[in-house]
């Protein structure tokens, strides 16, 4: 509950609107509670015979006219005040939700890969959607409802006491029981609706899994068994729904039945008081209205308490994310020179959390401006880890990377990533136009620049095949690209930036060898005098590089030019022999088809 205090700044930011809103609600309650008084007044005039039988007489008219008009005025005033104050308070909730959304969005952008391993996207989405709406409800709903309930009870009781002390005290007797029952049931309802939600997600999971595996199900002729299993899950969901429904219905039945106790007190005790002349008939009738006013807060206590609780846990979940410190610290340095692309890697080691083995061990090498370096190695040899260290997606355990003799952790992140461009192995594209995906870092780029990089990435033909060209929308609502096309688009996205250091993480895996050759020559053309590092599995790719680094189990085992390494006769030379053989055979296979 204490965590709710962290929402205070959102209320404080609109403290005037909030105070006005809440006081307005109090005023509205007073107007509302006055209405039964006027009904009483009217009824009393009728019974006391103030209103004569002559309906046309002014006395009669005044006796009824005054209360009727007073009611109308009360209603209108109450309505206006309520509207204004409700809007004032509800808007604050919306402002808070607006700000929290932006805040969490911004905060998520600061997080590194470690954070995203800890929290799944689904989890983060749920927090951003559900928990923010819970917070909104607390700020705009729970505070308002709580005030309204308290005001209603206080004002209502005030009027009742002023009318009849004895009858009020008598009517209050059953109210604690009602509120206890309401509280208990709303807890039960909360738990059961949780079960229903779980049941629904079980149901969804079952259907999703089943449909994902529909081919297996059909191949094993298990459709009927699956339908039977589904029937169980389905039945359970229906049962849980029914249980929840019985509880809510029970509550809706119990509340008025218990409230009837208070009504009976008014009838029994009130009628006696009327007969004894202690209260008027008007008071008697007004008490029914006041009872209605009082019962409402009593009934709402339970749901309101759970609403506060849910709000508190939602707030806690939200601030858990907002309090998460980014793994990568950012140094907002002032001056940042344009890099030449000289790279120095010094005693670089990296170990993943909870792992004993180093993913990278004591890596040392230097790259001169304009050089192209290929990195080869098996799966798990540490290639991708090495590349990620360059853009500070990961922080080294030991050692450092120097760019133009400056350690990279001294650079502001955005400046570093502006000049060091890493193209990831998995080509993630956004549901946006093809052109904007290529010019993702800066959508204001000229189309010649985009076309130039598209040419280098052998993407021109693909783009020109689409009638919309660069404006073609990708994603579910647009065109789905093949794996190779995606990879080439991601590559173009990296190339277009012309950064002094470009790093390609196995970006040709889904591209055929011919296209790859095409891309490599394009790469040479556009990246003249610029430093490029690339990871590959193929010798045919690596041979184009000035130097080749071979990694194995996190260690650098070989480094040198293509010819040097071939002469050396190690891992690289073996690989070269095997792969050239393969490609020759593949050509055979092609030509053998008549």
């Amino acid at each position: 509950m204490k965590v709710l205090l962290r929402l205070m700044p959102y209320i404080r930011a609109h403290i005037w609107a909030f105070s006005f809103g809440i006081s307005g609600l109090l005023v509205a309650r007073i107007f509302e509670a006055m209405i039964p008084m006027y009904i009483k007044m009217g009824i009393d005039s009728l019974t006391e015979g103030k209103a004569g039988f002559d309906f046309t007489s002014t006395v009669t008219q005044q006796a009824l006219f005054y209360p009727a008009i007073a009611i109308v005025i009360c209603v209108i005033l109450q309505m206006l005040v309520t509207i204004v104050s409700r809007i004032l308070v509800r808007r604050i909730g919306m402002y808070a939700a607006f700000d929290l959304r932006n805040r969490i969005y911004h905060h998520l952008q600061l997080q590194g890969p470690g954070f995203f391993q800890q929290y799944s996207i689904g989890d983060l989405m749920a927090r951003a959607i559900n928990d923010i709406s819970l917070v909104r409800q607390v700020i705009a709903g729970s505070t308002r409802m709580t005030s309204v309930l308290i005001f209603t009870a206080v004002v209502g009781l005030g009027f009742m006491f002023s009318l009849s002390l004895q009858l009020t005290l008598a009517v209050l007797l059953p109210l604690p029981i009602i509120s206890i029952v309401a509280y208990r049931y709303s807890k039960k309802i909360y738990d059961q609706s949780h079960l229903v939600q779980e049941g629904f997600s079980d149901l969804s999971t079952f259907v999703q899994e089943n449909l994902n595996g529909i081919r297996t199900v059909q191949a094993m002729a298990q459709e009927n068994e699956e339908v039977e299993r589904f029937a169980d899950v389905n039945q359970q969901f229906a049962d849980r729904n029914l249980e929840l429904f019985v509880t809510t219905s029970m509550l809706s039945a119990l509340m008025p039945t218990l409230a009837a106790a208070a009504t009976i007190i008014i009838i029994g005790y009130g009628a006696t008081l009327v007969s004894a002349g202690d209260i008027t008939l008007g008071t008697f009738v007004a008490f029914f209205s006041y009872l209605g006013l009082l019962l409402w807060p009593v009934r709402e206590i339970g749901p309101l308490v759970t609403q506060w609780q849910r709000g508190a846990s939602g707030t806690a979940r939200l601030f858990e994310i907002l309090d998460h410190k980014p793994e990568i610290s950012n140094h907002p340095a002032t001056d940042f020179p344009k890099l030449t692309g000289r790279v120095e890697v010094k005693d670089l080691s990296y170990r993943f959390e909870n792992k004993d083995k180093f993913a990278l061990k004591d890596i040392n090498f230097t790259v001169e401006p304009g050089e192209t370096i290929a990195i080869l190695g098996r799966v798990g040899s540490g290639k991708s880890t090495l590349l990620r260290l360059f853009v500070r997606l990961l922080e080294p355990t030991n050692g450092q990377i120097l760019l133009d003799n400056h350690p990279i952790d001294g650079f502001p992140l955005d400046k570093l990533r502006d000049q060091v461009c890493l193209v990831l192995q998995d080509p993630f594209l956004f549901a946006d136009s093809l052109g904007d995906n290529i010019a993702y870092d800066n959508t204001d780029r000229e189309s010649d620049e985009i076309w130039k990089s598209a040419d280098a990435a052998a993407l021109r033909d693909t783009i020109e095949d689409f009638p919309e060209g660069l404006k073609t929308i990708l994603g579910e609502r647009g065109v789905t690209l093949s794996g190779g096309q995606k990879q080439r688009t991601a590559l173009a996205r990296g190339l277009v930036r012309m950064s002094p250091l470009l790093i390609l993480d196995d970006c040709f895996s889904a591209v055929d060898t011919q296209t790859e050759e095409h891309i490599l020559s394009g790469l040479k053309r556009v990246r003249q005098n610029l430093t490029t590092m690339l990871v590959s599995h193929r010798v045919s790719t690596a041979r184009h590089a000035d130097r080749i680094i071979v990694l194995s189990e996190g260690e650098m085992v070989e480094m040198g030019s293509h010819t040097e390494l071939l002469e050396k006769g190690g891992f690289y030379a073996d690989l070269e022999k095997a792969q050239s053989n393969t490609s020759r055979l593949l050509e055979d296979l092609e030509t053998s088809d008549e």
Partner: protein
Amino acid sequence: MSEAQLEPNKDNNEKSQNEPNNAKLDHSIFDADIHGQSANMVYLARIFSWLSPHKKLATVSVLLVVTASFIAVLLPVLISRVVVDNIIIGEADLLMPDFGLNTLMTWLATITGLDPIIAACILYGLLTLLCHSFYHLHRVTFAKAILHSLRDMRLDLFRHMEYRPSSFYDKVAVGRVMTRITNDVQALFELLMGLGMLVGEFVPFFIALFIMFAIDVKLTMYLLIAIPIFAFITYFFRMATRRVYRMIRNTVSQLNQNLQENLSGMQVVQLSNRERKNLSVYRVINQKNQKHEIEAIYLETGYGAFMDNMVNMALAVILWFGGGAVIQDAISLGSVILFTQFVDMFIRPIRVLGMQYNVLFRAMASAERIFQALDWHEQVREPVKPAKLPERIAGKLEFRHLSFGYEEQDVLHDVSFTINPGEKLAVVGPTGSGKSTLIRLLGRFYDFDNGTIFLDDNDLNSIPSSEVRKRIGVVLQDFHIFSGSILDNIMLGNPSITREKAIDAARLVNADKFIEALPKGYDTLLVERGQNLSQGERQLLAFARVLAADPEILILDEATASIDTETEQVIQQALKQIMQDRTSILIAHRLQTIAEADRVLVLKNGRVKELGTHEELMAHRGVYYTLNQLQFQDISINPAE
């Protein structure tokens, strides 16, 4: 075709392209986004057809609500006519209806000797209890009828989708089918419960109206004027909010999509320094959303406060006109009080109706999507006169002039060959040669018209698909692991497989070692896709699954992913075990697997290129020879082996 090679890594990347006919998912046939679709009677009638088995329950429920409503109306009558008019004022005007309540009270007072006021209290308590018990029973029975009919609908829908063929799922995104079974049925639940609520509100409304007319026609008429006004205002409010709500829904889903995409591509975002730009895009959508949300707040608050307070306004009307009538002795004072108590019953139905309005539109869109799904009738042709197969068949397969193509491209051309009972045939060929299609046709996942496949001299098309799949066990490359225990995954709900048989099967394929090392052995729960198992373990599990099912013919689409040598040995052993005495077709990627086969069939571009033993084909020095060489090269590429 330079991409056609057997390199393992590549195959996975290219998988999306190898799917039949490169099909882009065709969403057009499932999109039923309806804007402004009105309540469609045809849909409603169809929804009610699921309700009809629960007709009795629904009828009882309606009877209960009518009874309960009648009693609910009696309660204010008791207070006004009996307590006020009779007991307090002492003038039980006999012209006004009191439904015998005065008599009942007097009777109760006389036989018990209680004070009339106490008797009235007891009566009030009893009636309240009765009324709310009936209401409770009504709600529960109603919910039960609805829940059960929608449970049935959901099951029917699931069953229907379960039998759609592979060609259907090639075109449909699973998510779209899923939301129909889950969310859309849920929307109908909301609709039907809402309709039930309307019944619960309108019955007392009419009863109250009837009584009010009986008491004073003029006063009732004055109050009735309010109804068209309310209805009118409600209508306009709904029209206004509909647009706003739609804008809110749109902006919210844009916000979520943006966030989701940003989270999925976070690394690219960060590496491209797009954080600030993306935040500003998000902020713009957020701003738009806020604008509409605030519009909604204005509308809702205005409408809500208006409707709340109009109840009180009606009180003024009653006091003015009703009071006048009392003075003229036209009605009793109790009756005026009665009117004040009925006001709420008068206004609620309109509010509820307004609330249900939006639900109705959403539900109609859902109904359309559900019925659309139920009307997809695409299915594999089943024989009209199914051939009868003996208990156990020999397992001979013959392909005769089989040609097949997906919608746009031809895949198999005039394929003919025979496999004798118990024979093991390896099928090899470059990617895209039609190997997988061969399996799909054998499993009756697709219809084929050109050419025939014979299973023990029966035309495959004359055997029901379920029967075919029982006889031909297929181990797919991406076989699916269901969340559930290991044992469940072996038995797959097949009642003819006992626990012992399943464990035996696991033992025979050497899966017992890793299974018994797991914390709960055979009862260890697996997550979907078996992420807590290694590649090799999953393969063994799939073998155990097919061995337990014990089909006469085995088809294995070997997984291409690389496995360490030790696991490979275990898998080869297991493979031998499951192929024993079984006609087998192996889509082979590994030399060792090919070595297990009696003969090798080489497919290329959908045609049979070579067929013979390993030695024969090696001597022939054709496609097989080349592929074989490549295979050797592959091993040296991967230094792990």
